[in-house]
């Protein structure tokens, strides 16, 4: 009798174990199960006899088998409950939503309305610091989800410093191309450089590097277009990418023209060096063909004029990021070194006073400029929650040939292009931040910004960045 019981228990347990997982069980449940097993045994005596032969070795394992049977049953019950619950909730299909709330208090020694990066054709974008006093610029709403097994979609809306809502990203991407290929279409941040693809809330400083502002027109360069990436089947990271777009934003301009108005190519290489170090290096190229890309300046008498550039703009970016964390665990301490070098060549035609505001007539002439810039920054988390960072920015206005000045066209001199005066802007930034949790951060930042010619700006910021909702994954 006892032997029969043991065999039955073992048989039932083995069957249950083969199909489903297990968990602990109380004595009462065990007794109940024993009763059920007894019934099963009576009903299926003949079949169990056959099983008994196959399970001759089961005796030794009988004790734990009883327990397993109970656990398996409990699991089955839990699983059924969970399924029922999930099926009832149609809202479970709602996309992931995350909201970034960002607020800044700025104290600036110079009027942010006069901000310019002297020596570089202004982009017309948000290149300056946030307004004085309190502001909530760059708060973001991100909505994303899988569309079906083949596509995923993402939508990002951001609050600009001008208090407008701007669609920063609205793209779909493929999930099932395979062979290392990924295709994106819509509006997205370009994969060129390193910081360009990072959303402002994951930056290590309040503002973008000067070079990013001078050459890519503000915080992130994005375009409406398509991107194809291919990851090589290598033991290290090797990624190639190409983008084609409308080129509507600086350094391009919206052109009402069929076809591709801007194109970008990039290659990224990366890997680990031991458990504690990881790195990524990249080389990127962006080509735009702006037509009448306007900007504002003053003439030599101080009258505001509207100028414009048409031609080709080619930008090369080299980037390097190196991260260190003891044993690869960044929670306690970690260090991040990041640097990018930008070099841009623009050649075409510059037009002066396109609206003839000065009354002396519009002029235009050849324009060639080869300009560069770089930044290097280090951020060190010296203990949990606390980080310090230092960044140095430098730009070189380089060689600029402005034929109107060169040939004194219409009497124009260099004084009629004060915004393009030769200047090597630089900026030194220090920051300290504290993270209450993975989802909230408070930051202090001081910068001495010499972007304007002869007008150094002492900038002091207090910033909070909080993230609500879905736990998004950040780009490395």
């Amino acid at each position, binding site marked *: 009798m006892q032997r029969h019981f043991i065999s039955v228990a073992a048989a039932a347990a083995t069957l249950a174990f083969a199909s489903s997982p297990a968990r602990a069980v109380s004595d009462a449940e065990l007794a109940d199960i024993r009763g059920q097993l007894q019934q099963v045994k009576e009903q299926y005596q003949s079949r169990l006899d056959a099983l008994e032969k196959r399970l001759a070795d089961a005796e030794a394992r009988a004790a734990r088998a009883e327990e397993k049977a109970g656990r398996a049953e409990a699991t089955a019950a839990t699983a059924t409950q969970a399924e029922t619950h999930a099926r009832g909730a149609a809202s479970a299909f709602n996309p992931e939503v995350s909201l970034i709330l960002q607020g800044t208090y700025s104290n600036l020694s110079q009027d942010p309305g006069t901000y310019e990066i002297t020596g570089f054709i202004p982009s017309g974008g948000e290149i300056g610091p946030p307004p004085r006093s309190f502001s909530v610029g760059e708060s973001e709403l991100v909505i994303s989800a*899988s569309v079906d097994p083949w596509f995923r979609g993402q939508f990002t809306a951001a609050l600009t410093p001008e208090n407008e809502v701007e669609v920063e990203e609205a793209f779909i991407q493929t999930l099932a191309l395979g062979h290392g290929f990924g295709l994106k279409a819509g509006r997205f941040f370009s994969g060129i450089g390193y910081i360009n693809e990072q959303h402002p809330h994951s930056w290590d400083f309040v503002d973008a590097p000067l070079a990013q502002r001078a050459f890519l027109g503000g915080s992130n360069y994005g375009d409406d277009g398509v991107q194809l990436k291919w990851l090589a089947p290598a033991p290290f990271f090797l990624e190639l990418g190409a983008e084609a777009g409308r080129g509507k934003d600086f350094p391009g301009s919206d052109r009402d023209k069929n076809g591709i108005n801007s194109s970008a190519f990039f290659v*990224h290489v*990366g890997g680990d060096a031991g458990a504690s170090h990881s790195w990524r290096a990249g080389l990127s190229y962006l080509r735009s063909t702006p037509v009448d890309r306007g900007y504002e300046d003053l003439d030599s008498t101080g009258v505001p004029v509207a100028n414009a550039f048409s031609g080709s703009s080619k930008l090369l970016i080299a980037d390097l990021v190196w991260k260190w964390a003891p044993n*690869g665990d960044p929670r306690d301490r970690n260090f991040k070194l990041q640097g990018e070098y930008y070099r841009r060549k623009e050649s075409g035609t510059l037009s002066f006073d396109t609206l003839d505001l000065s009354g002396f007539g519009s002029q235009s002439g050849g324009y060639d400029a080869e300009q560069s810039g770089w930044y290097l920054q280090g951020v060190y988390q010296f203990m949990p929650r606390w980080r310090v960072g230092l960044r140095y920015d430098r730009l070189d206005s380089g060689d600029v040939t402005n034929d109107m000045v060169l040939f004194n066209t219409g009497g124009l001199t260099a004084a009629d292009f004060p915004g393009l005066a030769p200047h090597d802007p630089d900026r030194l930034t220090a920051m300290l931040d504290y993270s209450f*949790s*993975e*989802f909230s951060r408070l930051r202090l930042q001081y910068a001495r910004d010499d972007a304007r010619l002869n007008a150094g700006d002492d900038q002091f910021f207090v910033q909070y960045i909080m993230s609500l909702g879905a736990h998004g*994954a950040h780009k490395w």
Partner: protein
Amino acid sequence: MVGGVGCRFALALALLILPGPAAAALGIFACEPEWGALARELGGDRVSVYEATTALQDPHRIEARPSLIARARGADLVMCTGAELESGWLPLVLRESGNARVQPGRPGYFEAARFVPLQEKPLRLDRSEGDIHAGGNPHIQGDPRNIGAVASALGQRLAEIDPPNAAFYRERARDFEARWSAALQRWQARGAPLRGVPVVLQHRDPYLAGWLDLRVVGVLEPRPGMEATTAHLAALAASLEQEPARMVLRPAYQPDRASRWLAERAKLPVVVLPFTVGGNERARDLFSLYDDTLDRLLAALKP
């Protein structure tokens, strides 16, 4: 000349893209060491396992490093805990990998937590409760009985994605389950003296406590994923005077400040548990992981 370079480049590229001779082993990308160890147990020499994290890393806090993306590209199976443990990096790694086989929902994507009942499902989903996981506590490897359940599911999955070796995986799974059952029985007997022993945990671990029937009288993390504050530690020390504990348990990858402070204050031994395979020198595989865990707990019981 230029054409020649171009040709050679195209050839090199083609060599990179085209699959070489049939891959010898099934590539497995294991998010945590315990799943890497389990994959080796079931796959033997038919699989080649890459472990994305080590026992000294917090799998919740690591980043989507380029090396991980590169490794996920060639994987036939991505095996992770799930239950949002890897939500800060895995979704990005999978998307960027350009590997269709291992996307969520495909047979090449395996979440261990789906095969065990999760504990501590939060009743209220709000981050004021800390870094909680909607599906429940994801640290399921605290209870070796969960490993058995996952092993059975993994054996089936391996057979599904690598049909030519299906019989091999099924046989290895059966063999592993038999050895695991014997080990469970042995551990159950050895762990009997730990039943009802009052302990303080560093990190909420209902699985280990449930398996050994430990009585949890305090947790150092005031909320999941949040470091202990001095106020919380002081309150905990005070409550331990009313309800004393026998030991403080800390996983090897967690910082030791809070547990050391409390242990000195309350004069308790700190038991540093391997938490996963590779957590210390003895915990080299799944069997020695729980052997070592029990040894350390039992040693701390001795006066």
